[in-house]
């Protein structure tokens, strides 16, 4: 890799060109870009799988895929969306933004940063490759419950190893983010002055380091149960299948906050900008985030109310879960209070941010209903749950990422996207999203179980509506791709450095697009 050091004098632009630039880069902006492109690609791969699921569920009967493939598609759809689209997407935003927001020249550990990214394409090659093995891909749902996941062929092993690799990637990435935030802040950038996106990521990174290794342990036990004769989940040897669920959800519940906290951070950046007013209740936002993170470690068993836990356990996990509504509520109220008496304008990022608050709350409230144990006996493993988590995941996390894309794209590319296309994308997404997922609440209440390739005729109408919505939702995303390509290729209007009238923060003080290395000399923050 001895690229001629022709540029040594201009140390601001020192890098190999062509593919090697991307393969070997240690620059946070390059790495951020790669993460974001990867995330978008995975969103489409996972989305196509979702569309296959919805196509099969368009009407009763088996039409397109056989039940095994259907289960694989469900499993893969979730794994790809969660580990491939949302997590790398947020890490991409973190890579681009955190150094700029705290006035650092780069991430603290730049080579490791590159490694965190480059593990992912390989991990997903392994995961997707499982679909082409003789026994098919993993078909036990993304939760990989034993003993179902003990059945199945090499595809399951590939999934397990892929999860190990993703785990390494996430932990390394999280370490990097924590260290960057703790050690790389510009002079005067006290902790309680950090932009909220940075705060939420700091806490998310902590959750990642605490949760991912536990998942690694869980799938390792699965692997040894499958191939090395251990009996962790085999009652004949004294094991317990429910043990897997406990370990999985000890990871899994913090994981869902890993998927939402950076989204909260993004919303907390955007709403003040377009309300032209400082964020309401900064301190309580920070404490609420920390509170959510803490609670997330003691509520895991709310996913397992039906496994037959002792009564005391069910009560404890119910109460603890309900408590999460308090700090989350504080956040929602703070956002509303930020808008209150502001001077609000409705550019695309703001529209998305408002939709996130509004729709996420629907998902949050249905989450609260799920937390009520006796009621959960009815909702559990039905489409009510599917509706709940798509409201928090799609209209929470994914739409927050869309908001962030529109918000920061002009800064990154130096080009202003087309507001008209952005708004079209917003309205189509919001409308089709609700058409897709709102009816699923009713399906769940009426008794449609999740993870089934075929259903009884009473569920036909709502499934049909939901499938139509899904296709509209999928097609609408092409607009966003077009908008991004336009900006990246410089086919749009030039953006100013400030970009947004009400935007505050260090990233808006540098040029649009920012130079390859920003803040080589640290700025001073008053």
């Amino acid at each position: 890799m001895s690229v001629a050091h022709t540029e040594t004098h201009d140390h601001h632009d020192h890098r190999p060109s062509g593919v090697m630039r991307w393969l070997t880069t240690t620059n946070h902006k390059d790495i951020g870009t790669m993460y974001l492109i990867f995330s978008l690609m995975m969103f489409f791969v996972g989305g196509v799988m979702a569309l296959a699921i919805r196509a099969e569920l368009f009407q009763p009967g088996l039409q397109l895929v056989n039940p095994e493939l259907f289960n694989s598609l469900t499993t893969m759809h979730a794994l790809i969306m969660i580990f491939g689209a949302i997590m790398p997407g947020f890490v991409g935003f973190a890579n681009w933004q955190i150094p700029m927001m705290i006035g650092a020249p780069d991430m603290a550990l730049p080579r490791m940063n590159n490694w965190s990214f480059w593990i992912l394409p390989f991990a997903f090659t392994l995961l997707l490759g499982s679909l082409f093995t003789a026994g098919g891909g993993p078909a036990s749902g993304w939760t990989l419950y034993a003993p179902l996941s003990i059945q199945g062929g090499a595809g399951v092993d590939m999934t397990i190893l892929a999860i190990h690799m993703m785990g390494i990637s996430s932990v390394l990435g999280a370490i990097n983010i924590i260290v960057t935030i703790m050690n790389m802040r510009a002079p005067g950038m006290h902790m309680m002055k950090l932009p909220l996106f940075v705060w939420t990521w700091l806490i998310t990174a902590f959750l990642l380091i605490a949760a991912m290794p536990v998942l690694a342990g869980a799938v390792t036990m699965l692997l040894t149960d499958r191939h090395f004769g251990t009996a962790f989940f085999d009652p004949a040897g004294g094991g317990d299948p429910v043990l897997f669920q406990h370990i999985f959800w000890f990871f899994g519940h913090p994981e869902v906050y890993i998927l939402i906290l950076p989204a909260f951070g993004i919303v907390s950046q955007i709403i003040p900008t377009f309300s032209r007013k400082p964020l309401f209740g900064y301190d309580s936002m920070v404490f609420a985030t920390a509170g959510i993170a803490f609670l997330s470690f003691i509520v895991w068993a709310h996913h397992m109310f039906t496994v037959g836990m002792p009564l005391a356990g069910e009560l404890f996990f119910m109460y603890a879960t309900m408590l999460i509504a308090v700090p989350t509520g504080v956040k929602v109220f703070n956002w509303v209070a930020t808008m209150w008496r502001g001077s609000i304008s409705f550019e695309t990022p703001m529209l998305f941010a408002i939709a996130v608050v509004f729709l996420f709350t629907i998902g949050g409230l249905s989450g609260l209903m799920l937390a009520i144990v006796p009621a959960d006996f009815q909702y559990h493993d039905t489409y009510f749950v599917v509706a709940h988590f798509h409201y928090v995941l799609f209209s929470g996390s994914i739409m927050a990422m869309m908001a962030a894309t529109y918000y920061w794209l002009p800064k990154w590319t130096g080009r202003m996207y087309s507001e008209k296309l952005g708004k079209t994308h917003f309205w189509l997404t919001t409308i089709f999203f609700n058409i897709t997922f709102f009816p699923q609440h009713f399906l769940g209440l009426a008794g449609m179980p999740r993870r089934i390739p075929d259903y009884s005729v009473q569920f036909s109408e709502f499934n049909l509506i939901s499938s139509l919505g899904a296709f509209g939702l999928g097609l609408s995303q092409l607009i966003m791709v077009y908008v991004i390509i336009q900006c990246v290729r410089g086919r749009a209007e030039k953006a100013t450095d400030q970009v947004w009238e009400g935007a505050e923060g260090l990233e808006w003080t540098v040029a649009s697009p920012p130079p390859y290395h920003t803040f080589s000399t640290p700025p001073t923050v008053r």
Partner: protein
Amino acid sequence: MSSNGDYYLPDPSPWPLVASVGLFTLAGGFVMLVNDVNVAPWVMLIGGLIIAFMMFGWFGVVVKESEAGQYNAHVDISFRMGMLWFIFSEVMFFGGFFGALFYLRNLAIPWLAETDILWMGFDGGWPTAGPMGAELLPADTVAGPGQFSTIGAWGIPVWNTIILLSSSVTVTFAHWALKKNQRTALFVWMVITVILGFLFLYLQAIEYIHAYTELGLTLGTGVYGATFFMLTGFHGFHVTIGAIILAVIAIRCLMGHFKPDHHFGFEAAAWYWHFVDTVWVGLFIFVYVV
């Protein structure tokens, strides 16, 4: 070498990519191995070699940069924090297995023992190989077919505890020596630490052979065997890595690396070693004694 402000930012580097390729090859080879594909060992070997190559390359660059004085105090803090958080992630990994042990032992086994309708005659207790597993004998007795016995705490395990704890002390002595720039003492203490580390592994290997050949205690001996070997096995794996790291550090000491006020590599290895040691104490208490 671009140095931005006072913070060292490395040039583009091929090593992360090499590391990913190595990891992928190793993982792919492992999947082949457990699915009985013939070439699996070779694929794993190639993966292992790529990773070894990567380590030499990557760490080589880091050592060179470090010795060239490119890492100032600010960079040093990043490394330290990075290492501490890495160790925290390892704590959580072991936490998962300890959690499994507590759950199985204190919840699952009693529940199984209570369900007479399915498991007549199984009355729980610990150690156990489960309702269908081998029968338990007193510790350290030779077991016949369908029987197993456990490794008592007060034989080799307690010696191993002493060995590991002393190695934690000796590595600290080495650290003091380094800080006072007493190079000979530093090297001697490092060598002793490394020897203690490998001694531990040697004794552990003897225990494993004893368990497999005489005690009927294997990975497949129900939940006891599973938790026992997974916990001690992962620990042993970490000791191996730690001992290798310490050996490398010892060699670097001999080569004159590290300064009294600047020796992150040394400290990282020492922290790791203390961590491995702490885990062992947990193991000794919860796996062997209780």
